[in-house]
């Protein structure tokens, strides 16, 4: 465990890499605090910039963006009462009232400390747990890997979005479009329908940029969204808020209730490790649990420090949790870590249970980059917060075209193919329609990235032994399949119960 960290320190503690992480953190905070722009979008747009770097610096830059983005939402959530990202929804419950009560500085600095300390807690969990899971996964044969992917996809489909059915359709759609192009075992070209564009397949990152960035931009220029945005600008509260940050005093205050911090961080890390569930869910669960366990639950919602700590600790610690399956199994926990994995693949590094054994310097680099990014986040937030607020003043009509062009650049730089841009446009439209009809996008993305791995393992399993019952007789494989079925059954049962409850109380 410690040798991984030593290797990581050697990789990360170089002036150039540290500078890259710092820039990543700043970029992350800025995108995190602009309402309507998500961390996933930020990380997607950072990716092309990292192609010229070596793998460790590239991944380090993206971890910086991720850590910064998770804490950036805090600023707008506390000062404007609007979550800058979906991960900061619960932060508005207590952060905003606290700011309104004349303590905006306190709300911000408590939030920053909670973000920082919870990142450290989740880093410990990551470093302790990931290698264990990876060495356990080394026992997996193709049957287990295939069953694991089935389980991961069904869990994603059940935890995100409004219905399991739509989630599953989204996931299968992802798997289906991943079959276009060369087949992963024999290299036979499939489903190109004689379009030269499709012969190389549908690149994962183009799907990602189209679905997460282009579709989100289209949403933000709907008339009602633009009107909301205008309204926010008119009553801009951030401009004249005066505040003083007292780092030391608030640190003491946060540390006085370590149980709340630890509980919220652990919740965040666990939720983060579940495929598909991320900051937006952890943020709310941690807040809810803090309220249940608190000695003063009535104070929640009125500007209680425990509420700010719980919600911010909840979302930032998902980063560490999210990295556990990503590093240990090669199964991304979210769209964000899916980009991280694809960045590794661009450099020819194959994620999976062997990653820690084969590329210990990269895994160590990820761990240490996470630590460095958390420190930078702390320093940058405390020193730069006054300037960051100004970013929310950039109008939508400047942001939308600029980011669309960045999407085009990112897509083009990937393979130097103009035809990829047509796929980008198409995927943007598909993603937008999906969002409009409440199909979640995370399963599509995870499906596209895991599709080839699922197919390879399924066919390898058959080549070994043409007998499909092996999926059910091998114990680990069976366990994963049972988890898959249970996750669907449980979600349907939960939805039924919620419906019955709603019907019972008119």
């Amino acid at each position, binding site marked *: 465990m410690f040798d991984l960290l030593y290797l990581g320190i050697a990789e990360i503690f170089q002036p150039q890499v540290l500078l890259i992480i710092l820039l990543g953190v700043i970029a992350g905070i800025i995108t995190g605090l602009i309402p309507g722009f998500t961390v996933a979008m930020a990380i997607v747009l950072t990716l092309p910039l990292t192609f010229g770097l070596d793998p460790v610096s590239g991944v380090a830059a993206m971890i910086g963006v991720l850590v910064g983005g998770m804490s950036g939402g805090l600023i707008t959530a506390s000062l404007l009462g609007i979550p800058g990202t979906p991960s900061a929804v619960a932060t508005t419950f207590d952060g905003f009232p606290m700011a309104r009560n004349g303590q905006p500085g306190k709300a911000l600095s408590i939030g920053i400390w909670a973000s920082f300390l919870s990142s450290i807690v989740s880093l410990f969990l990551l470093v302790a747990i990931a290698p264990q899971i990876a060495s356990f996964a080394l026992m997996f044969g193709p049957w287990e890997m295939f069953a694991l992917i089935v389980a991961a996809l069904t869990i994603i489909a059940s935890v995100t979005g409004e219905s399991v059915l739509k989630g599953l*359709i989204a996931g299968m759609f992802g798997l289906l479009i991943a079959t276009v192009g060369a087949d992963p075992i*024999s290299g036979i070209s499939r489903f190109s329908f004689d379009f030269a564009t499709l012969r190389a397949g549908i690149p994962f990152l183009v799907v990602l940029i189209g679905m997460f960035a282009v579709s989100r931009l289209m949403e933000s220029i709907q008339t009602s969204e*633009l009107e909301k945005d205008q309204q926010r600008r008119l009553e801009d509260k951030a401009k004249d808020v005066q505040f003083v940050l007292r780092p030391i005093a608030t640190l003491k205050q946060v540390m006085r209730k370590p149980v709340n911090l630890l509980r919220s961080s652990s919740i965040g890390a666990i939720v983060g490790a579940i495929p598909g569930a991320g900051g937006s869910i952890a943020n709310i669960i941690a807040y809810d649990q803090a309220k249940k366990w608190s000695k003063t639950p009535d104070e929640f919602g009125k500007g209680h420090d425990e509420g700010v700590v719980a919600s911010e600790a909840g979302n930032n610690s998902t980063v560490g949790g999210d990295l556990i399956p990503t590093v240990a199994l090669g199964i991304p926990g979210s769209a964000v870590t899916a980009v991280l994995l694809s960045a590794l693949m661009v450099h020819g590094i194959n994620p999976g249970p062997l990653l820690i054994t084969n590329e210990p310097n990269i895994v160590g680099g990820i761990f240490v980059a996470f630590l460095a990014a958390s420190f930078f986040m702390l320093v940058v937030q405390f020193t730069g917060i006054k300037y960051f607020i100004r970013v929310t003043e950039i109008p*939508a009509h*400047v942001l939308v075209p600029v980011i669309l062009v960045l999407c*085009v650049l990112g897509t*083009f730089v990937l393979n130097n193919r103009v035809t990829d841009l047509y796929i*980008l446009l198409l995927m943007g439209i598909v993603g937008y329609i999906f969002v409009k*009809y409440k199909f979640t996008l995370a399963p599509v993305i995870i499906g596209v990235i895991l599709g080839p791995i699922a197919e390879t393992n399924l066919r390898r399993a058959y080549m070994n032994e043409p007998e499909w019952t092996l999926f059910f007789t091998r114990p680990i494989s069976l366990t994963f399949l049972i988890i898959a079925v249970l996750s669907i059954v449980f979600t349907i049962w939960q939805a039924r119960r919620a419906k019955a409850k709603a019907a019972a109380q008119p």
Partner: protein
Amino acid sequence: MGEIVIGVFIIILAILIYTNSGDFPQLEEPVLDAGSYPRLIAVILAILAVILIIRKGMELYKSQAERSGMGIRAYTAYVLKEYKLVFLILAMFAVYVGLIDIIGFIVTTIAFIIAAGLTVGPTTKRNAVVMSIVAVVLTLGMYFFFETALHVRFPTGILI
């Protein structure tokens, strides 16, 4: 209603994939060839889409009785108002992507940023100036960054 259309599209896609996956070259693989896995996915996806269509169809049928209010004309007017910019920007984006190869990266990108900025924002002289500056600085900055740092060759058409 929209869900049903999506469902139908997904079924068409699944059928397309299924029917095109039969004639791949056979290698020495006894059970699963290049077409087996796509067929499996296509079948599952089609089944899920059928369930979705049936469910939404039943919901639609049930709610038909109590549906009232908004007529087709009012609905179209609402859609046009709410999504006007989405349609416009998507069309502009399509033109931009289509022309990038023919005219060249720099010119089309600058033109797209200015045009989209003026479509979404106010068409004032001030905004035109702001958008022009943003467009030129961003485009040239990115162009030279990627050309020098990453050796990317951008499409150059008739112009640049």
